[in-house]
């Protein structure tokens, strides 16, 4: 599904990613761990096409298509979703208008007519319940004044609405209380199908107990230095990253 080959990327002239190779197949859940500043969010942003990050070398294909040649909105339409580490507040734009624009943009890309008002509200209600998002929040401005946990929950709600093929969860677990984490993780699991895949960035084992990853990668200073099974995450939880730095 996703093939990343030798990606180098920089921010403001400073090289952050120094040759990333990663292959994600449909049905898989990958975990990306690594110390603060190692480049995990940078890699996510490069995948979704954030213009702040410049790719200086390498290729990324998604279901055979050249991802780097696509504008960010088309990457979204193709089925890539990133749950933000820090979701963005958009004062004045209601969640409903925002989501409706997003859903209709995707439908247009797929050659479908805009969704009817009734169908949209039904969909919102269904997905909201799936992730336990308060009804009041969908009537408010996007993320404005939401608590840290509400913002994260709102990201998963948006994921549910857009039904992506590949989801990148960038520290979706941080900021969630124990119950919220369970609800969000269970919601995420319900959205999984054999056709979808995920990259889950986290610092904690907690999230992994729910989502049961297949493959764990460790990033250090812009490179993936170790790839293994779920036990790798347990070892990092107890021993940290020092043993990986030679």
């Amino acid at each position: 599904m996703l093939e990343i080959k030798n990606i180098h990327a920089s921010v403001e002239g400073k090289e952050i990613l120094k040759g990333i190779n990663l292959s994600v197949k449909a049905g898989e859940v990958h975990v990306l761990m690594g110390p603060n500043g190692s480049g995990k969010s940078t890699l996510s942003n490069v995948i979704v096409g954030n213009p702040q990050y410049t790719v200086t070398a390498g290729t990324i294909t998604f279901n055979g298509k050249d991802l780097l040649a696509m504008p960010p909105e088309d990457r979204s339409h193709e089925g890539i979703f990133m749950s933000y580490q820090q979701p963005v507040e958009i004062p004045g734009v209601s969640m409903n208008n925002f989501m409706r624009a997003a859903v209709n943009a995707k439908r247009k890309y797929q050659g479908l007519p805009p969704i009817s008002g009734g169908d949209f509200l039904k969909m919102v209600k269904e997905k909201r319940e799936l992730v336990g998002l308060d009804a009041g929040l969908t009537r408010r401005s996007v993320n404005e004044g939401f608590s840290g946990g509400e913002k994260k929950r709102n990201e998963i709600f948006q994921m549910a609405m857009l039904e992506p093929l590949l989801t990148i969860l960038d520290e979706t677990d941080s900021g969630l209380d124990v119950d919220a984490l369970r609800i969000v993780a269970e919601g995420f699991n319900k959205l999984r199908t054999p056709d979808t895949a995920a990259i889950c960035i986290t610092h904690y084992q907690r999230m992994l107990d729910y989502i049961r990853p297949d493959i764990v990668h460790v990033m250090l200073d812009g490179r993936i230095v170790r790839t293994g099974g779920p036990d790798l995450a347990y070892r990092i939880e107890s021993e940290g990253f020092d043993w990986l730095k030679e």
Partner: protein
Amino acid sequence: MQFLEARGLPTRKDERYKYTDVAAVLEPDFGLNLGRLSLQFDPRQTYRCRVPGLGSSVHYVVGDSVAESNVLIDDGSLFVGSMVEFAQRYPDILRAYYNKVEGDSLAALNTLLVQDGLVIRVAKGRKVADLLQIVNLSVGSVPMLANRRQLIIMEQGAEASILNCNHSATRCSNLATEVVEGVLAEGSHLQYYSVEETTNNCNLLNTTQFVQHESSKLDYASITLNSGLSRRTINITLDGTHAQTAVSGLVLANDNRHIDNNLLVVHNAPLCSSDILYKYVLDGSSIGAFAGKVLVNAQAQKTDSQETNANLCVSPTARMFTQPMLEIYADDVKCNHGSTVGQLDDTALFYMAQRGITPEEGRLLLQQAFAWDVLQRIDLLPLRQRLMHMVEERFRRGAGACGDCVMCAG
């Protein structure tokens, strides 16, 4: 007249006109309809401009003439009709209220040239349920100067809502001078909304003056969706205790438009409040100017005043001049003022793009949200919704598309 002779027209050296060159606007050789020719034009055929969900009575002013097809209202407690008619029926009332604007050469010029106007008088205790709508149309097959006048008399406890719309039915360049004078007697409540949706050929010089007495309440908003050069001078005087005024402005400008709002709110009595919000969305090479002065005189203790001017320059060549001012001579007051000039938020645009929303649609959502904020202050829900729709259409389809009139749709 004497004032006009003594002072001449304002120049950019005048503090209140430093952003707008009036002489340049008046320079072309305009035609004046002195012969009172009836313009063969039935506005009812083309300009319905209805607000869905609101009962309204519509009165047309075509060029500078109060349309003959208007239905005169005079039921004893409500008068809506031409000034000429009003002068015949109520000469004393007219004399008491007409032409009280002082120190304004453009208003003086209008007084000199004006031949008719509209009077809305709401007598003591009368609460007008329907929206009173005034549609001003710029017309003419040669460049014309139209001089329009409105007099609004709100007697004790009276209530009314007025929607004033400016449209254009000509492709010729033209200029309108407008003077709106209003008095709000004790306990009266007036909502006055002015929508400008003409063309880049239509220039406007407007002077609006409201005097408010005890416990009166004014909600004023001007919404500039499309126009040529537009200059509004707004003077609001709070003369009675507990008077409240909310002044709002929304400006959407593109190309090389020039929109200038110059506001003066004078607090002369204690315990009054003024709440001012102006927002501009400037695209292309447009120029926006806002100057808003709140003057709190010594006797106006316990004044509560809030003034905000927020501006969005969506293109690098758009320019905004902003000057909120406070002048306070009382010591026990609560006053705030501030202004901002910003660009569209790239982080928000990218967040939307990640969700599949194209940059064009994202820009639209952000501009619309910024603009709608002003419309939230309009109490009449159907009108607010109608204006929200018009703003959305304006952003979506560009200037000059309100979607209702034949002119706009064509």
